[in-house]
């Protein structure tokens, strides 16, 4: 099969915020930079879908001339991120986040970032706008870019990264990309679940490829589900519009029996769990609890209506967030009428953010030399639960990963000829065309996605996790090798794309399920029905996943502590959550 071949100093894989920020940083160090994006430039991945807020301490916001709480500090933000993460965070990564955030925001403002408003410790803008600012900057800096190009495999020699095999999705042609260093910035793996809140490209290709090439992953069991996402009608499914409105103005959540689902819970936890971004973890847990106990609505969710919030309040916030009831191109006019009549819409949790991912050192380098990683595809910063902004994460980590990848690349002379290795990958990718009969990748993908949503949701137990692992193993053993692609045409072959993404998705789900099964406690986004307490004596440690002899191996390692000591003792999950909420600093806002 013919292929296109390219060489670069630094290859950035991922067309979201972390990838663009890394590319700009590497280019500013005079490295030759190529960025490959699986979808359209600046319009794929999770970044353009974000609301979006950039969080940092209010005092630094003030110093930049924006509204912010002058009594806030980096130390307060640091402590809040630690407690929100149930103490599982890598504290060195938090320290980096809080200290880097102001200069990253300043860069963005200098490059033309507009914002709606700022509050105590956040600047509110939109994901699309952030991406447009980054795209413009990357273009003027001379970053080369490819779009609709998908990562297939990483070529590694002597534990050093050398290049990748990629696929030009539209033509179906392979690409050989040789690089002196690589920044992985492929974000989450929302596509392993249905429904989800991400773009359809997020299948975790980078995390899975890094794992196959020998990099360790961590904390894979921690997955944030956004609450109050539309479940119905289908045209709105996955949209965060009700999440945004409920966070800003409140409202009423009821189960199929018409009961207020918040009523049985502690008043303080409900207050913080509905008016701050703690709502994702708290309300997702509550919603799944309703469904599991037989009080879910038609599509497995709960009903959201405005309750006793006056329509004038709804209109005020809706007018700001969804002018004329349009959210981007989504026409929400019908929902506006439903709210007016106090008619409920069905909402529920959908996968939104992955706390787990590739393990990196303080230089954002992975276990593989020359392979760096940034943003959501890494792990550590948010521990077991994210409340602070992932927008800030992608920018601060993108900057460092990009600079370090450029420094690394500049020390290397010439490129290795990896043709043989890349040709092996090509044969593997083409093998799917050889099967004359077999399983349809489209159907198997949907089955996997629905089971992942059910068994790897906010509430887990040993029986379901074990069933899920058996299911994944059966697909690994009997499914992946037997996928049948009905058309031999290479150009935009959806079945082939599904077949190429599936093995990685299965690996990541298995890693998450095995970590979740091993963690016999409840912490952050991970609640175990059979182990409902947060166990600080036995489980204040990170999960580490590595490949040992072709098998997935789960181990643990100590939490990286910098200044905040770890707690001890064991406590019921919701009591622990309340205690963590109570330790929040005196700075207001949603974070």
């Amino acid at each position: 099969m013919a292929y296109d071949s390219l060489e670069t100093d630094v290859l950035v894989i991922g067309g979201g915020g972390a990838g663009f920020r890394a590319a700009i940083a590497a280019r500013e160090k005079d490295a030759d930079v190529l960025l490959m994006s699986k979808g359209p430039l600046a319009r794929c991945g999770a970044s353009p879908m974000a609301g979006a807020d950039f969080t940092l301490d209010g005092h630094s916001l003030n110093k930049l001339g924006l509204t912010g709480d002058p009594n806030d500090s980096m130390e307060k933000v640091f402590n809040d991120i630690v407690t929100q993460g149930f103490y599982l965070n890598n504290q060195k990564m938090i320290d980096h986040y809080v200290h880097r955030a102001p200069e990253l925001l300043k860069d963005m403002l200098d490059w033309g970032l507009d914002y709606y408003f700022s509050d105590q410790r956040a600047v509110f803008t939109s994901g699309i706008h952030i991406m447009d600012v980054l795209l413009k900057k990357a273009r003027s800096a001379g970053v080369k870019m490819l779009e609709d190009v998908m990562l297939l495999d990483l070529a590694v020699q002597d534990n050093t990264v050398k290049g990748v095999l990629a696929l030009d999705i539209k033509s179906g042609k392979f690409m050989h990309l040789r690089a002196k260093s690589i920044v992985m910035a492929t974000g989450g793996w929302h596509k392993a679940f249905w429904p989800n809140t991400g773009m359809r490209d997020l299948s975790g290709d980078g995390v899975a490829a890094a794992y196959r090439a020998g990099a360790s992953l961590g904390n894979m069991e921690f997955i944030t589900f956004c609450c109050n996402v539309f479940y119905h009608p289908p045209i709105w499914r996955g949209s965060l519009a009700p999440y945004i409105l409920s966070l800003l103005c409140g409202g009423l959540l009821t189960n199929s029996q018409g009961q207020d689902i918040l009523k049985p819970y502690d008043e303080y936890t409900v207050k913080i769990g509905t008016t701050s971004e703690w709502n994702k973890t708290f309300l997702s847990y509550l919603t799944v609890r309703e469904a599991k106990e037989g009080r879910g609505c038609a599509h497995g969710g709960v009903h959201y209506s405005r309750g006793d919030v006056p329509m004038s309040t709804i209109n005020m916030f809706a007018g700001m967030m969804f002018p004329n009831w349009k959210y981007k191109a989504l026409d929400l006019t019908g929902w506006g009428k439903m709210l007016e009549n106090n008619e409920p819409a069905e909402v529920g949790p959908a996968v939104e953010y992955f706390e787990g991912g590739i393990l990196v050192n303080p230089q954002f380098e992975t276990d593989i030399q020359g392979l760096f990683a940034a943003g959501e595809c890494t792990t550590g910063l948010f521990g077991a639960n994210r409340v602070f902004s992932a927008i800030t994460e992608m920018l601060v980590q993108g900057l460092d990963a990009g600079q370090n990848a450029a420094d690394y690349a500049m020390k290397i002379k010439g490129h290795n000829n990896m043709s043989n290795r890349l040709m092996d990958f090509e044969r593997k990718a083409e093998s799917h065309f050889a099967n004359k009969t077999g399983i349809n990748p489209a159907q198997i993908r949907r089955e996997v996605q629905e089971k992942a949503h059910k068994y790897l949701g906010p509430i887990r137990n040993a029986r379901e996790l074990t069933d899920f692992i058996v299911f994944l193993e059966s697909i690994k053993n009997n499914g992946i090798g037997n996928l049948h692609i009905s058309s031999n045409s290479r150009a935009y072959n959806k079945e082939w794309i599904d077949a190429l993404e599936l093995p990685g998705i299965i690996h990541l789900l298995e890693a998450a399920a095995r970590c979740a099964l091993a963690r016999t406690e409840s912490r952050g986004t991970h609640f175990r029905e059979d182990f409902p307490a947060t166990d600080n004596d036995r489980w204040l440690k990170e999960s580490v996943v590595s490949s040992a002899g072709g098998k997935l191996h789960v181990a643990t390692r100590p939490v990286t502590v910098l200044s905040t000591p770890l707690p001890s003792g064991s406590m019921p999950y919701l009591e622990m959550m309340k205690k963590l909420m109570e330790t929040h600093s005196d700075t207001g806002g949603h974070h």
Partner: protein
Amino acid sequence: MTEKTIKVKIFRYDPSVDTEPLFKEYSVPFEQGMSAMNALDYIYQNLDSTIAYYDHAGCCLGICGRCTGKVNGKSGLLCQALVEDDVVLEPINMSRVIKDLVVTRSES
């Protein structure tokens, strides 16, 4: 659940094999509030997985704009086109077809 089904007629063309385009019709279960993209997803997953429409990186929420096509002759986003009855889906520009509803990008 409603028993209603709708007929979805789709422009099909694979330039590497076909001499000329043709239309293929599929029977899809109707669901209140479904989009053209929801109908395509159903067809891809249940009826004919050789069909191509831009979704490997689509947002399905009217943000990325890549699923632009023609619905009953009118251009718009497939993910935001409400389908209520029989419908015809075509690419936005027949001269730029890579496969079925997927087109190369215009120069602009």
